[in-house]
């Protein structure tokens, strides 16, 4: 059902929701950017509607809320292993359709792939309610329409929000929330709108034309020269889900410590390093090739939809101005020209 309510009332509602929910959304940290005069737009907890930054793309995605950068798996003492608790509270995340679709990719890896669910992911994921922010224009580097992640279905959100000047319109799918909103707003006809055209033109190569011959192409060698293997494209990506497991021992007592997992990225040195120092993708260009294929081909082969959601964050963040969308276009061109 659709509702219209004033921003003031929605703000009140948000305060009320905070009693049992941690609320996260895009926020603006003034003067915290790379060049200290810039603002940094990132995900964080929001206390008030005014905390939400609705006009700029976040540098990082909301994935760290359900897949923390660093997460303790166990605390151990000599003979015992203890699994850390998580907060009782539920989680509300304000996010755009591309990022909601990105969570679907994370779900596929953490909950569907392999023999068992990843409980560390699952127990946070189970708590999440999504408040999707209508996004019809996107930003310069986005290509979610091409990646088929511009839309979301009602079962994928609790609320879908359209912000106007002093009001907002929304669709609510959760009866409890609907109950609260009914008291504040008026019923309206509401149809979510989605972005229908990408500003950045990206031509996805047809899957059936992607062959291993492309692996040897000169295209990748160019990236060997340009990429510095910093892995920022991996950390900024809402769908990169790789991690490394490591034990930490406490200084005071070396019999105690914790097993942690932390984000890992296929661009970063050591990702494939095996005993004896053998690496599988020494050349940075090979890593770019591996990531590109994973995002627009391999994942799809396995799960039936592309991994990349076209958020463009990897383009925005790369210190070497490497554009992923450009890379896809070049690949497509090579295929078209039959090189």
């Amino acid at each position, binding site marked *: 059902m659709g509702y219209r309510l004033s921003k003031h009332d929605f703000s009140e509602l948000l305060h009320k929701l905070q009693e049992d929910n941690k609320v996260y959304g895009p926020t603006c940290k003034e003067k915290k950017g790379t060049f200290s005069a810039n603002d940094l737009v990132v995900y964080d907890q929001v206390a008030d509607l005014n905390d939400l930054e609705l006009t700029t793309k976040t540098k990082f995605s909301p994935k760290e809320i359900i897949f923390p950068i660093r997460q303790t798996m166990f605390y151990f003492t000599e003979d015992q*292993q203890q699994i850390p608790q998580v907060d009782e509270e539920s989680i509300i995340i304000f996010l755009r359709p591309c990022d909601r679709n990105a969570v679907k990719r994370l779900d596929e890896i*953490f909950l569907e792939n*392999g*023999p068992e669910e990843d409980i560390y992911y699952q127990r946070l994921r189970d708590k999440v309610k999504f408040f999707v922010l209508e996004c019809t224009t996107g930003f310069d580097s986005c290509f979610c329409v091409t990646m088929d992640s511009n839309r979301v279905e009602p079962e994928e959100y609790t609320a879908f929000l359209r912000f106007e000047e002093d009001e907002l319109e929304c669709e609510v799918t959760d009866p409890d929330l609907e109950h609260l909103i009914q008291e504040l707003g008026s019923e309206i006809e509401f149809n979510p709108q989605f972005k229908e055209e990408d500003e950045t033109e990206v031509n996805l190569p047809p899957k059936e034309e992607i062959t291993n011959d492309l692996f040897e192409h000169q295209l990748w060698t160019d990236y060997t020269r340009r990429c510095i293997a910093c892995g920022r494209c991996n950390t900024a990506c809402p769908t990169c889900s790789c*991690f490394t*497991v490591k*034990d930490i021992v406490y200084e005071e007592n070396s019999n105690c410590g914790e*097993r942690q997992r932390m984000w890992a990225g296929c661009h970063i040195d050591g990702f494939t390093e*095996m005993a004896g120092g053998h690496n599988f993708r020494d050349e940075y260009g090979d890593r770019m090739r591996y990531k590109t294929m994973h995002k627009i081909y*391999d994942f799809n082969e396995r799960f039936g939809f592309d991994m990349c959601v076209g958020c463009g964050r990897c383009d925005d963040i790369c210190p070497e101005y490497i554009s992923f969308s450009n890379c896809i276009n070049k690949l497509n061109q090579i295929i078209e020209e039959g090189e």
Partner: protein
Amino acid sequence: MAVNVEDNPYRAQSAEIIDIKQETDVEYTFRLAANMDLNCGQFLEVSIPGFGEAPISVSDFGTDWLELTIRRVGDLTDKIHELGIGDKLYLRGPYGNGFSLEEFKHRNLIIAAGGTGLAPVRSVINYFYDHPTEVNDFELLMGFKDPDSLLFERDIDRWKEKLEVLITVDQTCGVWGECVGLITEHIPKVNLSDVENTEVIVVGPPLMMKHTIKEFKKLNVPDDKIWVSYERKMHCGLGKCGHCKIEDNYVCVDGPVYNYAEIKDLKD
């Protein structure tokens, strides 16, 4: 519904070390008291809290024990080598597919193994040693760097009684009676008169596997009669961490054992 954290796939069970055999200077075989439902060629995630976790092949198993043959190469494996009988290791698994013995039954089986590559096939060899009527012809080729890196000597002595065993070392040595030279040089000696009825398993370091497969191909062994076990960096064994992925394959879940025809085109 609340997730039960106790039912956690990352949680390891402790297992007591009940025997240790030194194979070489850097490789020991640990026998652990553990009751697991295992296939030949599967692996476990083995750990000591504080020193990390690593994928290790089960090199042999019985109803209430299993063996791990561990090469000392770093933080965890160094620490494991300090352990003695009665100490504990933490295990989770088993992971991966393992070898399907049915594929090899009543056929000619050739196993070509290099160095520690022997670990995942040792239980396959032992199975057919114990059930000789279930395999037609069985030949085992083993390549080692030098006589000092020979693994499973006591097994080999036994195997030789019933199986065709060829051992080769890369480097020349005086007193030692076995063949000299790379394993690839000895492949033409194997009996491939009935290729259609022959299955070949190749396990070992990446380069050894590559060249060995090439030799078998030269002798007209078709791709789908060749089986391999792959090693990759692994941090979960559960298809989550991504380190082991090759194209759309997760080696920890879909492998480590593959039919060569399926994966020969995979790059890295």
